[in-house]
């Protein structure tokens, strides 16, 4: 009965709230938002004028941004689409930022101070080719030099003022690949250098005013080119031949081509293959040979000469004109935990203009890129600042021997996220320290009281807001009673693991993945390795980071075990086999280390941790462990079962062979797998029963071994609208991954992907495009167990004579039935997630990442197959919403409120200790965190609850009782004397 009352209360409470929303003054209390840009590809400084010094950067996350050079803050930022990769960036006319993107087919100009787009020009593009942007360095502001853009086989000249295409020239001839577009300073001739079939060099001279070809010369090079090219001056380039052993200098002064061959072995003895490095240095090039970087000076006649040699791990900037026709460049190399920044003159490498040594955090890795900028000091000498990009994608500004600012841009490319607990508060650290003195405590509460009685002045409101943030103690590094303080562990593409505090999003620790076998492993995924709960309480929790040496799937894997409290790597191991899948098993050993199986490309699985105890646990469950693979290319889902130990092939007793058990083959001519999904393995389900209004009972089919698969017809796998409704259909399946049995199949005619789905408990919600209705649709499928439906006798249930809690097997072939319903949805979706709570009692909300990079919270009640057009009174009381053709988008239910999580990629939810509350973390280019209570915080008082008011009321009541008691005593006495 208590449960019913509780459930009724929960229902009552949840039905009272139609949508989640928060007040204006609550924004930023529990949530935080961090803005990033990603790994910087290009940087252009803008420091000429007095005023704000800034640097314009474009990044691998397709962001163009203007950063403050003093503090590293973002002045403005634009995140272009995922297919709109930036090829080049420049500043034109001293006031426009020019970006070339989408393989040279889109040219945009942004206003430099505020980032408003000034113009956009779509350029003619014929085929895929190199895209080159050259913005003339403009000394006179009023004169409009055209921007020359090469992309998609065409050379364009575009006016910087309004983006008008002045002329375009076709270079789409068969086999002709343009390599460089060069324009000597002040000249009206543009040289276009290209190769025909990598064997013939062709140079076109083009009049930059009208776009006509003035002259064309070509010359065949017998050895053929490799394609690596470096332009050393406006009339010379250096190319590697096809064997990568000869450097060829191509000169084209006045259109006459000349080759000058220099074997690399002449420059360096015992040379292997050479590689031309990217920095542009005037009359010099950097070549990587024998793991060393050599600087080769290019003489007037194309004669090459080695002038310096540096260790391999050196990063260099492009050269930059400093005073009096001199050019300088910066180089950075490592030495232990320090980095050395040197600025040298190109012509005189012995003349070091600047030599600085800076202490560098080991967990930033090597320097990847250097961008240099000079400024004139007050004593008229040259000062230099360098913007460096590290291996972990972080961006730092070095100036005067110190790191002026740094940005953790690795967090713009998060690949996997998990959460971890903070350490328990130690004895001796009293809460009183946080609450300071009693007087202040009282003062704070009086302020709050004023606030709640609407008596507070604007200053008081500010003070209250500050107090709220401070007094909540939300930034402490210890566990709290409600489980609101946690660590978010984020693994980035660069292989760095970050621990972020949920209170304010600061980085508690970070760690770069290391390996003995390879220089820098890629991070793949993240697993909870050890979470001491009942046993091994003296141990710190740890996570498993799975990485790989190289991008190929057969590359050997790397495992790293990281202590969550300290951020130190406990151990790391090169496992010697490839990693294609990691299967966390639902078993833990006596120290609460979770057993994991790692599958390799050969079809073997490897057990971790490699202990005999884990082995015995695994042996016990040997027959019951299965794994499946989804072949997206061949359209086959294969189920495997453990066969035996692979002791016959290797001596490794923790290695097991597998055997194929079943296959589900989708016909390749009509169906192509586009999406698969399973339930989250750590999801908690409170009950197996679903109660309908008339006390009718349905048993949910809650199984972890269910796979949701969505397929579309191969024609419809492309862009939305690229096919007619008749040509495309979408089919979804629910497949049991133990037996390969298809439990449910649902076909949507005239529908198309992409499919975004979420799977929780016994339901799947998925989002797709309906071509006939020209609208997005959302469908919910709930799956119920028919074979348990007979368990309806109350007496049997009271006496416990039922098999509802007995372990079940997929081989019993449970009878299932499904209920489904579809709705229109007005928005395009990037990702969908669902809230998760500690016990799974609280009602759920779907978290929909919209195309606008916001997160919309939608009650699960809106996607309930039991919705009807006219629900009965009892159904209404239960909270069933009348059926509408489309799902509502309530503006107040955006959990991101005013923020946008640019480039949204994923949403992760994790339960807190309070049943009502869940953590939500969204990542993309930006990071966003908030706490949600889908049914409001029914199990705790709100933050703004006025304890002072309660206290005052109690005191007043006690006083009143005492006074009236005294009065009545007195009166009684006088009555008796009368």
């Amino acid at each position, binding site marked *: 009965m208590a449960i019913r009352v509780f459930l009724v209360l929960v229902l009552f409470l949840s039905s009272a709230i139609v949508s989640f929303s928060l007040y204006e003054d609550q924004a930023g209390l529990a949530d935080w938002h961090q803005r990033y840009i990603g790994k910087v590809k290009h940087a252009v400084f803008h420091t000429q004028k007095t005023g704000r010094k800034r640097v314009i950067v474009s990044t691998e996350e397709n962001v163009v941004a203007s950063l403050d050079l003093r503090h590293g803050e973002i002045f403005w930022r634009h995140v272009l689409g995922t297919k709109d990769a930036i090829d080049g960036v420049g500043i034109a006319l001293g006031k426009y930022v020019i970006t070339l993107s989408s393989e040279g087919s889109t040219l945009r100009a942004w206003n430099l101070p505020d980032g408003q787009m000034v113009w956009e020009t779509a350029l003619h593009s014929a085929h895929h080719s190199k895209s080159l942007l050259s913005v003339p360095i403009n000394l006179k502001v009023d004169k409009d030099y055209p921007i020359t853009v090469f992309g998609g086989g065409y050379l364009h000249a575009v006016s910087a003022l309004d983006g008008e295409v002045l002329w375009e020239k076709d270079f789409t001839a068969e086999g002709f690949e343009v390599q460089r577009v060069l324009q000597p300073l002040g000249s009206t001739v543009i040289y276009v250098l290209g190769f025909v079939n990598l064997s013939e060099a062709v140079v076109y001279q083009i009049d930059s005013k009208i776009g006509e070809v003035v002259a064309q010369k070509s010359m065949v090079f017998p050895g053929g080119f490799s394609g690596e090219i470096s332009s050393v001056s406006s009339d010379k380039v250096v190319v590697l031949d096809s064997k990568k052993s000869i450097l060829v200098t191509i000169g084209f002064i006045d259109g006459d081509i000349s080759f000058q061959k220099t074997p690399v072995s002449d420059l360096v003895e015992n040379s292997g293959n050479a590689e031309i490095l990217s920095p542009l240095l005037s009359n010099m090039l950097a070549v990587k040979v024998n793991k060393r970087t050599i600087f080769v000076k290019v003489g007037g006649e194309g004669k090459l000469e080695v002038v310096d040699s540096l260790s391999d791990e050196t990063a260099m900037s492009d050269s930059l004109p400093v005073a009096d026709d001199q050019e300088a460049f910066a180089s950075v190399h490592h030495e232990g935990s320090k980095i050395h920044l040197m600025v040298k003159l190109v012509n005189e490498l012995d003349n070091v203009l600047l030599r600085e040594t800076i202490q560098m955090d080991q967990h930033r890795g090597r320097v990847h890129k250097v961008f240099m900028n000079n400024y004139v000091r007050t004593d008229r000498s040259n000062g230099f600042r360098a913007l460096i990009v590290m291996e972990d994608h972080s961006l730092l500004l070095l100036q005067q021997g110190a790191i002026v600012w740094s940005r953790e841009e690795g967090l713009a490319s998060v690949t996997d996220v998990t959460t971890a607990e903070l350490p328990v508060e130690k004895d001796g650290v009293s809460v009183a320290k946080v609450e300071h003195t009693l007087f202040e405590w009282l003062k704070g509460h009086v302020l709050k009281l004023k606030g709640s009685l609407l008596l507070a002045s604007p200053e008081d409101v500010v003070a209250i807001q500050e107090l709220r943030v401070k007094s909540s103690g939300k930034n402490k590094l210890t566990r709290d009673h409600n489980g609101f303080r946690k660590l978010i562990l984020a693994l980035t593409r660069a292989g760095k693991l970050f621990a972020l505090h949920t209170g304010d999003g600061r980085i508690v620790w970070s760690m770069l993945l290391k390996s003995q076998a390879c220089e820098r492993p890629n991070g793949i995924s993240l697993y909870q390795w050890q979470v001491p709960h009942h046993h091994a309480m003296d141990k710190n929790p740890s996570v498993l980071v799975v990485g790989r040496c190289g991008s190929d*799937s057969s590359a050997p894997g790397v495992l790293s075990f990281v202590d969550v409290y300290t951020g130190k790597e406990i151990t790391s191991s090169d496992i010697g086999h490839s990693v294609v899948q990691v299967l966390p098993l639902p078993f833990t050993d006596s120290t609460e280390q979770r057993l994991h199986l790692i599958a390799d490309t050969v079809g073997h699985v490897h057990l971790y941790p490699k202990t005999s105890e884990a082995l015995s646990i695994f042996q016990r469950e040997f027959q019951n462990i299965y794994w*499946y693979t989804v072949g997206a290319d061949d359209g086959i889902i294969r189920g495997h079962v453990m066969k035996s130990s692979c002791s016959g092939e290797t001596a490794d007793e923790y290695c097991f062979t597998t055997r194929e058990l079943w296959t589900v083959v989708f016909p390749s001519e009509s169906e192509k797998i586009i999406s698969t999904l399973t339930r989250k393995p750590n999801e908690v389900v409170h009950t197996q029963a679903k109660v309908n209004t008339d006390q009718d009972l349905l048993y949910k089919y809650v199984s972890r071994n269910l796979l949701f698969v969505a397929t579309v017809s191969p024609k419809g796998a492309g862009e939305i609208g690229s096919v007619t409704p008749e040509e495309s259909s979408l089919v979804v399946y629910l497949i049991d991954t133990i037996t390969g049995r298809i439990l449910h199949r649902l076909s949507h005619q005239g529908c198309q992907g992409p499919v975004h789905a979420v799977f929780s408990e016994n339901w799947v919600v998925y989002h797709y495009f309906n071509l006939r209705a020209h609208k997005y649709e959302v469908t919910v499928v709930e799956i119920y167990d028919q074979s348990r439906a007979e368990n309806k006798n109350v007496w049997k249930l009271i006496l416990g004579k039922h098999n509802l809690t007995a372990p079940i097997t997929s081989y019993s072939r449970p009878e299932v039935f499904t209920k489904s319903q579809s709705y229109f949805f007005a928005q395009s979706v990037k990702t969908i997630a669902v809230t998760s709570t500690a016990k799974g009692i609280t009602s759920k909300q779907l978290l929909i990442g919209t195309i606008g990079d916001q997160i919309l919270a939608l009650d699960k009640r809106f996607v309930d197959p039991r919705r009807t057009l006219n629900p009965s009174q009892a159904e209404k*009381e239960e909270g069933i919403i009348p059926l509408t053709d489309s799902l509502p988008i309530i503006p107040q239910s955006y959990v991101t409120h005013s923020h946008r999580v640019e480039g949204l990629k994923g949403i992760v939810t994790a339960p807190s200790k309070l049943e009502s509350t869940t953590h939500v973390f969204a990542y993309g280019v930006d990071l966003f965190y908030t706490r949600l209570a889908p049914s409001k915080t029914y199990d705790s008082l709100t933050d703004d609850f006025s304890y002072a008011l309660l206290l005052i009321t109690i005191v007043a009541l006690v006083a009143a009782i005492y006074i009236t008691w005294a009065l009545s005593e007195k009166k009684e006495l006088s009555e008796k004397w009368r």
Partner: protein
Amino acid sequence: MDKGKAVMGTGRRWAVEFSDQSTVPSSRDILDPPGFSRASQEQDDSANSRQKKDAEANWKLQKAWEVAQSPFKTLMMMGFMMWMAGNTVHLFSIGITFSALWQPISALQSVGKIFEPFKDNKVELLMPKLVFLALNLGGLALGVWKLNTLGLLPTHASDWVSSLPPPQEVEHSGGGFVFH
């Protein structure tokens, strides 16, 4: 008088008999005044008291019946209140239902005390008591029925299954797309 005798039984020194012995002729010392006939008055007296006692017993019985039937009125009243309260769970309906449950229970607990004033050798109280009990049980049943209509009684299978967690699974499976 009976009580007095019981006290007298042990160590009595002296006693004053206040009771009027005049009605017992044998102990009479003084003769009746002339013209006074004791017999008729005695007869009249005894008839009178008997009559009185009968009337009292009747009255008691009547009252007992009245008391026994009193829950009927509250029953009707409760029924009306319940009908007014409706079938949804809220403060009013819960309050009504719990008072409807509490009243019969407290009445049943004090059934002896309620019929105490009507206790008499001559009054047959069993029937009123039974009626009283039956009516109160009826009231209780009404309360329970109301409780049930409010859905607060665990009489459905759902009430017993809701707390059951989903069953464990024998097999475990994992996998998916291969890492790229």
